[in-house]
């Protein structure tokens, strides 16, 4: 911390606008004695050991260094990993249109007079999300599937005035980690309901459902790939005034019952599958839609269609009065942004695959995964979990630690799957395998042969 302190004591810095006096006044207001005191809850091992940075390098040197680093990534593996993020085909028109300079900003357009194109694109995106999820109103997007789920539970809290949240154990553990971390300092009681045979445990959920519950969080297909129909859980929840939050996989909605059809109150999900490339850390896309009656409790931006003074169709941000730049601490949510560029990609993807195309993509995913299941299940010592139907991802049990198997499969050119022990303690030999429309018959056959040889040769 020393360098920062020195910069402050110099009183004028090119980069830090606060004067020494500003800093002193702020520390006094907080009740901290010094900058070190202010940051005293950061453990020493988490603090930088030194601020002695190396001398600056030229652009050429930096580029070479970064290229060498990125060359260490394996980017040409044939991908059978899913776990919430999938290797789908992105039609070239998505890049072509989304990379146009007129669109190329991730930020929300505040000024309708100079942003009609972007606003219309977001409006089309919202309409597409409504139709996809079977809901009545969608927002202009959120950061990713996990934060969308967090926003949904906070919304359920606002709607119901209750503080208990039931979470199905088969909701992505990545999302659950995000939820728990976001709500760590809030007064929310979480009850995790373990899955039974890979599906939501009706009896256990019923036992916990009462008039203290704000919402129940479900996911379809769940983290193990299993498809479920949560309509009965939705009826049970509504009977006690609790809401149902359903996290959905958008591509699967080409074939499966939508959250709206199941009676969910809030639908969320990860929009990466809709035209966004797989990338470590994103940027990804959270979507959210709900019933009209909850419009004013929904976080984030909403673009509305209206008419201008000359009666021409136009688009503008609406319900902004609920946001934090106006409502301050009483804002609906502290999210005051959206993923406009990612939402644009989703809108382009959905409009170019179209209504029938999406059904076709979904069907291909399902059929190719079934084909892979039938081959993988024949390998000696390997079993495919068959307790529920699946969409494009399924759980296999291996005779060995999947982590070793995955490492060996990389040598053969495959990203083989996701080991469940990373998040589920009692699933040592379990791995989830995803098969998208991009996987060819030849790749699936070669994958099976390689897996067999890794296990038995």
């Amino acid at each position, binding site marked *: 911390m020393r360098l920062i302190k020195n910069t402050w004591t110099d009183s004028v810095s090119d980069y830090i606008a606060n004067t020494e006096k500003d800093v002193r006044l702020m520390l006094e207001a907080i009740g901290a004695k010094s900058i070190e005191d202010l940051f005293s809850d950061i453990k020493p091992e988490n603090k930088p050991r030194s601020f002695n940075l190396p001398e600056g390098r030229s652009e050429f040197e930096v580029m070479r260094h970064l290229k060498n680093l990125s060359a260490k990534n394996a980017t040409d593996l044939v991908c059978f990993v899913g776990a919430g993020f999938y290797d789908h085909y992105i039609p070239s028109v998505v890049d072509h249109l989304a990379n146009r300079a007129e669109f190329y900003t991730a930020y929300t357009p505040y000024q309708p007079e100079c942003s009609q194109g972007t606003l219309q694109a977001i409006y089309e995106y919202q309409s597409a999300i409504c139709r996809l999820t079977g809901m009545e109103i969608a927002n202009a997007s959120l950061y990713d599937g996990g934060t969308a789920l967090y926003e949904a539970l906070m919304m359920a809290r606002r709607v119901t005035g209750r503080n208990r949240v039931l979470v199905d154990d088969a909701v992505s553990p990545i999302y659950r980690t995000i939820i728990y971390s976001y709500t760590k300092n809030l007064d929310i009681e979480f009850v995790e309901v373990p899955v039974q045979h890979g599906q939501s445990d009706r009896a256990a959920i019923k036992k916990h459902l009462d008039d203290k519950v704000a919402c129940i969080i479900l996911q379809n297909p769940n983290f193990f790939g299993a498809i479920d129909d949560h309509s009965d859980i939705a009826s049970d929840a509504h009977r006690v005034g609790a809401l149902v939050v359903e996290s959905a996989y958008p591509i699967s909605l080409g074939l499966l019952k939508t959250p709206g059809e199941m009676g969910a109150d809030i639908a969320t999900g990860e929009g990466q599958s809709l035209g966004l490339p797989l990338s470590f850390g994103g940027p990804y896309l959270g979507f959210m839609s709900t019933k009209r009656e909850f419009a*004013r409790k929904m976080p984030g931006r909403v673009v509305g269609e209206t008419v201008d003074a000359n009666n021409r169709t136009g688009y503008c941000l609406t319900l902004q*009065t*609920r946001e934090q730049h*106006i*409502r301050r601490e*009483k804002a609906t949510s502290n999210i005051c942004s959206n993923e406009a560029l990612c939402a644009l990609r989703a809108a382009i993807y959905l409009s170019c695959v179209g209504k029938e195309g999406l059904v076709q993509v979904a069907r291909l995913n399902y059929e190719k995964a079934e084909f892979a299941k039938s081959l993988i299940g024949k390998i000696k010592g390997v079993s495919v979990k068959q307790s529920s139907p699946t969409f494009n991802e399924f759980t296999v049990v291996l005779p060995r630690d999947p982590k070793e198997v995955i490492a060996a499969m990389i040598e053969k050119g495959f990203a083989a799957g996701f080991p469940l022990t990373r998040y589920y303690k009692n699933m040592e030999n379990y791995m989830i395998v995803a098969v998208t429309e991009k996987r060819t018959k030849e790749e699936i056959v070669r994958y099976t042969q390689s897996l067999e040889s890794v296990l038995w040769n």
Partner: protein
Amino acid sequence: MNIPQGLLFTKEHEWIKIDSDKGIIGITDYAQRALGDVTFVELPKVAGHVRQFQGLATIESVKAASDIFSPLSGEIIEVNTKLENNPALVNQSCYSDGWITKIKIKDLSEKKDLLDSAAYKKYVDGLGV
């Protein structure tokens, strides 16, 4: 600026018309002008309780969403459901058809913290409009 006689006011620009142990609450002409076109009124639940100067309802205009504070403590006995479909009543008729809620007053002595129309007029004039 319309400031009727016989009502009591808050410095947050709410009014209350007291009729024995009941009161009708709304926002003043000054408030509706400052807000601009009202687009939505979020009404409280009937049978709920509210304390003096605490949030009673939320009023949303093209400019902002603002809280309406209760001039007195009490129990909410009625809300103006006409506002659900016609929030513009607050602009058109803030002292009659645009009322917000009716309460059963808990403690009439709290009146001492409210302004009469003369005092409220003086207060509003001081705000310089």
